[in-house]
């Protein structure tokens, strides 16, 4: 059997046949008959030039297929076929990124969810892979702020201005940063993935900017490059990536967020989105956030200003002098009843983000809490995941 491929399609129910995409396509991969405008899978090279010019949004459709739909098949459609179930391998059958290397990275990050990731039902439609290695976006650094006081934990809040370039993002998506220079074999470096920590309407509302939360890793090529960026520097970006680790567009949905370190980036974006979209009345957000100590917890200052009505916080420390070590899973157990109550609510969405090492402990805590209410965790988790309510992104 052939390896599944990603195919670019146009939604015939939404398309109005203006042929702007067809005129824009630099390689004439788009054509039409009297019924439909269609993309030739043999020609399309995913350059994305046609995406922003479409007045309807019908152009941004993708399917993973074993055999691409032919032009003749597409001409006959009155609606887009559903995505076929091609199995559980996210790297091969997911649509988190068109770019294979990025898709593989994200699939690995999502592996802890125990199965193929699904976006929340009410999530907004993400744009994916608008910018590529060959055609990156160029962002200008607007600010680089240190978030931590711990000298061994240099975590930065980086603000990037996209200027006039369309760069639509949703909370929970990531971008790739291409570090300058070449590797040993003389090839340009591949992009590294970073979660966006700002909401969809910009770090500053209605400015075309995004923020990232980046920790300096010893010897890390890209993290040192990013952490040393200065205001005015230019950065090459790919993406956005990610199509499932997204928040529900539903003011009544409840969010249970568990994170450590820079895993707080998407949680910050979620919280800001809620705050801007529904304001104080939202509620329903509970966060367990772990770090070594307050000095190394990113956004410690700003978090203290977030009202409890919006976000109930548990900041948990594992290295505070004179106190016993406490990890996020310990606090989850201590808050067993609150967590259990959320697990029983079909409106609850769980997000776990941080280092791979946190997965086991959190999984263990969730297993215990689920059992305490008579729910086998593996089964509950699979249901939640398949409903787009359980999300893991760990590195």
């Amino acid at each position: 059997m052939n390896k599944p491929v990603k195919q670019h399609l146009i939604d015939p129910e939404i398309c109005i046949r203006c042929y702007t995409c067809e005129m824009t396509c630099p390689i004439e991969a788009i054509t039409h008959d009297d019924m439909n405008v269609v993309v030739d899978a043999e020609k399309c090279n995913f350059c994305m030039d046609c995406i922003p010019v479409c007045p309807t949004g019908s152009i941004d459709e993708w399917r993973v297929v074993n055999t691409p739909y032919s032009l003749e098949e597409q001409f006959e459609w009155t609606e887009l076929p559903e995505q076929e179930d091609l199995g559980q391998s996210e790297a091969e059958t997911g649509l988190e990124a068109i770019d294979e290397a990025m898709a593989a990275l994200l699939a690995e990050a999502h592996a802890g969810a125990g199965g193929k990731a699904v976006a929340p039902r009410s999530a907004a439609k993400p744009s994916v892979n608008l910018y590529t290695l060959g055609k990156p976006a160029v962002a200008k650094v607007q600010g680089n702020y240190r978030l931590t006081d711990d000298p061994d934990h240099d975590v930065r809040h980086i603000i990037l201005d996209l200027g006039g370039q369309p760069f639509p993002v949703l909370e929970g998506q990531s971008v790739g940063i291409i570090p300058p220079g070449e590797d040993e074999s003389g090839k340009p470096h591949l992009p590294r993935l970073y979660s966006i920590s700002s909401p969809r309407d910009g770090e500053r509302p209605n400015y075309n900017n995004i923020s990232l939360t980046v920790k300096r890793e010893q010897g890390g090529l890209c993290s040192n490059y990013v952490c040393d960026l200065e205001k005015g520097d230019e950065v090459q970006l790919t993406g956005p990536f990610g199509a499932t680790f997204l928040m529900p567009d539903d003011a009544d949905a409840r969010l249970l967020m568990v994170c450590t370190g820079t895993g707080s980036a998407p949680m910050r974006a979620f919280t800001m989105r809620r705050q801007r979209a529904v304001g104080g009345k939202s509620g329903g957000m509970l966060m367990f956030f772990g770090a070594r100590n307050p000095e190394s917890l990113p956004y410690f200052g700003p978090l203290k200003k977030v009202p409890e009505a919006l976000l109930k916080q548990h900041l948990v420390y594992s290295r505070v002098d004179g106190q016993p070590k406490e990890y996020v899973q310990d606090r989850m157990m201590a808050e067993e009843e609150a967590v259990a109550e959320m697990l029983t609510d079909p409106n609850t969405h769980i997000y776990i983000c941080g280092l791979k090492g946190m997965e086991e402990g959190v999984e263990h805590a969730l297993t215990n809490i689920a059992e305490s209410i008579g729910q086998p965790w593996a089964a509950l988790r699979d249901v939640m995941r398949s409903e787009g309510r359980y999300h893991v992104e760990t590195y």
Partner: protein
Amino acid sequence: MLDLINVSYDTQIPNNVGLSSDKKVLKALEKWHPGYIDWWNKLIPQNFQESLVYLRTAVSVDPKGWAKFDYVKMPEYRWGVLLAPQVEDRRIPCGEHAGEPAWQEVPGEYRNMLKRLIVIQGDTEPASVEQQRLLALTAPSLYDMRNLFQVNVEEGRHLWAMVYLLHKYFGRDGREEADDLLRRQSGSEEAPRMLGAFNEETPDWLSFFMFTYFTDRDGKMQLESLAQSGFDPLSRTCRFMLTEEAHHMFVGETGVGRTIQRTCEVMKENGIEDPYEIDRIRALGVIDLPLIQKKLNLHYTLSLDLFGQEVSTNAANAFNAGIKGRYQEHRLTDDHKLTGDTYKVWDIVDGKIVQHEVPALTAINMRLRDDYTRDAAGGVGRWNKIIEKSGIDFELKLPHEAFNRKIGVFADKLIDPEGNFVSGAEYDAGEPNWLPSHADGDFIQSLMKPEYEPGKYARWIAPPKVGIDNKPGDFEYVKLAMA
């Protein structure tokens, strides 16, 4: 170096034509600018001028930069002069000069013909804004209001595009023509707009959707043929305008589609199978399908008149001169000169409607109209799919081209929508079923109540399937400044 892709803001007028180093044209445009702003400010009710509208502004003409969305107050919209990138070694695509290098300056022998085409095109742009000036007062949602304003500001930009060409290439009389574009007014007694269809008021939202679907589509076809012009600056201007025009088609097609959708839903909810139970359907606050057919008949036939006479020497001359091409000229495989070819046109012979062959050169208008009809039929097919899906037995149809015409061989003939000659009495009896009556207009008017709450829609129209710029359903497309 002159940056011809990205928009430069170093003058008051955003542009990608190097205005800052073209002092003469810049001065002329800056002189014209206050009159334009004045025209805009007087046109649209004040509280909408002060509202923040989520609009698309082109920041460059390459694919990734022409659709930047943001909140803007309309009078502060960055109208500008934007031309599609110059194609290297472009050739005149048709007529007796076919194959020669495209003109970068106005060819002297065709100066007047070119100017007239540009003025006619330019005159329609502000006219439609004038026709639609009061619609926001009855917008069925903030989403629709935003779409209306997007159409309006882009028609305004299209006026700019034509005015630039007049100032840049036609000297003093070009400047006078540019001033006249602001002097004429849609529906005015003393100085009406040049084309009849642009002097009718757009009284309600269904008319607006029909107008953007049928009449703006004529505009699209005209732009398509001017985009094939051998006069390169006109071609580049029109090519960029077409990308914007696509949004107007979208507003029309989805607007009518959503109206139909809602009618079908409400009929189903109330167990109405027969689309002709008009009183019951209207009592439920939605627009009956037969009335939508009547509106379609009206707007389609009015728009056909915009194509002019079926057989036209003016059109032949423009084609032959290489000033105006055919729809998608570059994809046609003939000799692009049409010297020996013929084309089928409608005619009336011995009281019968017939088609016969005439020299293709003289049938340029007819050919563009045929392309238009084919293009327009596409959306009607989609609308029928909506009806079909809901299980209601009704089919919308484009009427025969001979019906209800004021220009061309069928002008003022008594012909029914099927294309049959009828007597005066038969026509009078049929007309209430073919064209919207005053009572029909009053009924539609009675539904036109504004809905200004984000995410809410007036009862007679369904919400869109997809938001603008992928925005969620309750997005506040217009932040209203309430006076």
